[in-house]
């Protein structure tokens, strides 16, 4: 298998995982795979050779390691954090958070009809984006190697589609998509520049991505701790902006998941239907 083919497979798989997968850790792994593919895409670029190639690959690899480490460590620590155990909470608020955390553990079945339709829709969007990227690379190669441009368009479109579909809902996917967008831009810098990018361009490109990564990781912490978003989704933030706070969330959660007392009552009713009916009457 040629290097360019292997590279394109990595970029395609990574982009698809950004769009389709739901688990935050899997999304980050897919994002890392895509970044690795983009780093390998520098190799066929004609302009990056010799010491410039080493400098470009080393800078990009270092940036990738730092960014992925920051995101992965933040995600790991936040997933281990239990909101209901935070200090300074009122008893009522603590109970609401305990229920929300219990509800988050009961994810809907992956074989439900709604879930299958959602997944099919995302796969279709991914397929269309892939075909569009292939077409754009053939129509507008912009004077760069075709495999490099294909990787660029696939990364760009995957990031754009992820931002459109998940950008206002999922904090993890939004962060990964924004970084993927800048990664595609970094690849364009190597593919479309008339000469090899200078140290200042490379350094700034790395610094802004690390800065963005740190900012977004801090935003995750705000989502979890300040706005009580159990799954790092952006819903509580935007609901809170409109003044919709805990009461409605508590009702929604209690509607979805019965409390321990209700479960015990239900179990008792099932075990002794007549006694339950008599007690009810």
């Amino acid at each position: 298998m040629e290097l360019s083919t292997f590279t394109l497979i990595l970029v395609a798989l990574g982009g698809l995982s950004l769009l389709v997968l739901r688990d935050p850790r899997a999304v980050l792994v897919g994002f890392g795979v895509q970044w690795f593919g983009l780093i390998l895409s520098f190799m066929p670029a004609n302009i990056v050779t010799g010491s410039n190639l080493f400098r470009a690959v080393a800078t990009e690899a270092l940036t990738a390691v730092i960014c992925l480490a920051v995101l992965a460590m933040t995600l790991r620590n936040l997933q281990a954090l239990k909101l209901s155990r935070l200090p300074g909470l009122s008893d009522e608020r603590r109970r609401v958070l305990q229920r929300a955390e219990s509800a988050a553990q009961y994810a809907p079945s992956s074989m439900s009809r709604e879930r299958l339709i959602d997944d099919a829709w995302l796969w279709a969007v991914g397929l269309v984006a892939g075909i569009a990227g292939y077409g754009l690379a053939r129509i507008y190669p912009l004077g760069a190697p075709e495999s490099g441009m294909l990787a660029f368009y696939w990364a760009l479109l995957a990031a754009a589609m992820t931002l459109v579909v998940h950008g206002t809902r999922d904090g993890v996917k939004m962060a990964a998509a924004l970084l993927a967008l800048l990664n595609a831009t970094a690849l364009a810098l190597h593919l479309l520049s008339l000469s090899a990018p200078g140290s200042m361009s490379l350094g700034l490109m790395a610094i802004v991505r690390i800065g963005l990564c740190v900012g977004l990781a801090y935003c995750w912490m705000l989502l979890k701790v300040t706005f009580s978003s159990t799954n790092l989704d952006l819903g509580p933030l935007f609901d809170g902006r409109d003044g919709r706070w805990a009461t409605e969330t508590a009702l929604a959660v209690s509607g979805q998941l019965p409390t321990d007392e209700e479960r015990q009552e239900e179990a008792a009713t099932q075990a002794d239907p007549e006694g339950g009916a008599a007690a009810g009457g």
Partner: protein
Amino acid sequence: MGDTRLVWAIFAPWIAASLAVLCLQGAQRVRGSVGRWLNIAALAVLCGGLLVEGPLLVSATGDAALLGLRLVAPPVSRVGLLAANASLLCAIFIVWAGSREDSAPAFRSSWAAVGACLVSGLLAASLLVAEPLVQVLCLFAAAIAISGVAMLQVPLSYVDDDNSRTLLALRTSAALKYLAISALGTGLLVIGTLIVLRYGLSLEDRGLLQIGLAVLSVGLVMRSGAMPFSAAFPDMVRAAPGVAVIALGAGVPATITLGLMLLSPVDFNSAHASSLAWLGAVGALLAGLRALYASQQIRGAQSDSRHHILVAMSVALSLGWALFGVFSGSRLGATGASLLAVNAALAVPLLVGSGAYRATNMRLSLLGTVVGALSLLGLPPLGGFGGTLMVAQAAVNLSGVWLAALLLGSLLVAGGWLGWASHAMPDAVMPQSNLRSMLASPIALLICTLIVAQLALFFLSGHWTS
């Protein structure tokens, strides 16, 4: 030698900011006279940075080959100097306001000063370093700093009060939106710049050049927060005025100046110019109509909203004039547009800051609003006059009709401000304050420093015209 001076000039605000933060953090922990002296030390460090930065930049930018700036090389170097210093002035104001116990809570955070200093340093770097891609990336780094400042003002702990949490959610979402739009705009700007640089000098493939220009233009519109990408700014103004001052006062003019420098390699002849320059005139006219409508429709309790709309429309008017200057295809128009961008950097913080102090000190707030509005309208002897005059001269060379449209836009915005003043004055609650307390107010410092800077800009623009 020039390189060393330039590097020091660019990093001087950052060093000053770091020292100032150390002093301010110390001042927050220590009460009494020691804390007060630490506040004064922070202010002195920032003023020192301002004093050192100016001569360093002037001596470093003496070598035109080092800069490699293109169409408007000599004015742009001075524009960069002025814009960087204007941002540093904002930082000084924010630190001063934060050090006072009776200041508005929005200006208390010393982190806003760090953001302002970072922006000023990045602005100086982006305007002085020749490579367009470096300018774009410096501006994005500034956007990250602005968003970071807004997010750092949100505490990393659970807040029980629902009203406070709503405000924090508003601030966080505004910062997040600003960050996302900036990242998207930066991506488009870099890609557009690469295409324009690749195909700008050869006219064999005009289609690709047009695609590059289109991508670049959309990127500039996104980064400058123009419609329809202006979602983050209203939230910023509502939830974090200090951050909005930094974003509007430093980021937007820098983007305009960056656009000037990016578009300058493309040879706009007069035929193309006359077909594009009308965009600026029509934009100015629409801004004027919107301002006049807003001043008549929104009354009473919504006076703050009307103030925000008028500020936004005044900035849009200034952008219309600047756009006309860019597309006029003349050196005079491009220089005038640069001057208008710097003027916006000075006037917008004054207008937003004045609006924030309306409840605290009505008289000084009105004075700041009048100075800022007159400057954005391009009236003498304030800083906007020079740029407006240059663009007007460029417009006369194209067609008197477009000059009439631009002036009509200015007239309508002026009418909007007059309408606002007539409604705002009778409703105003004039607090009983003596002259001493008025002069000790942070807004007085802002007005004084910015009036001096406006006058300097006015006289310097006369020098450049000659």
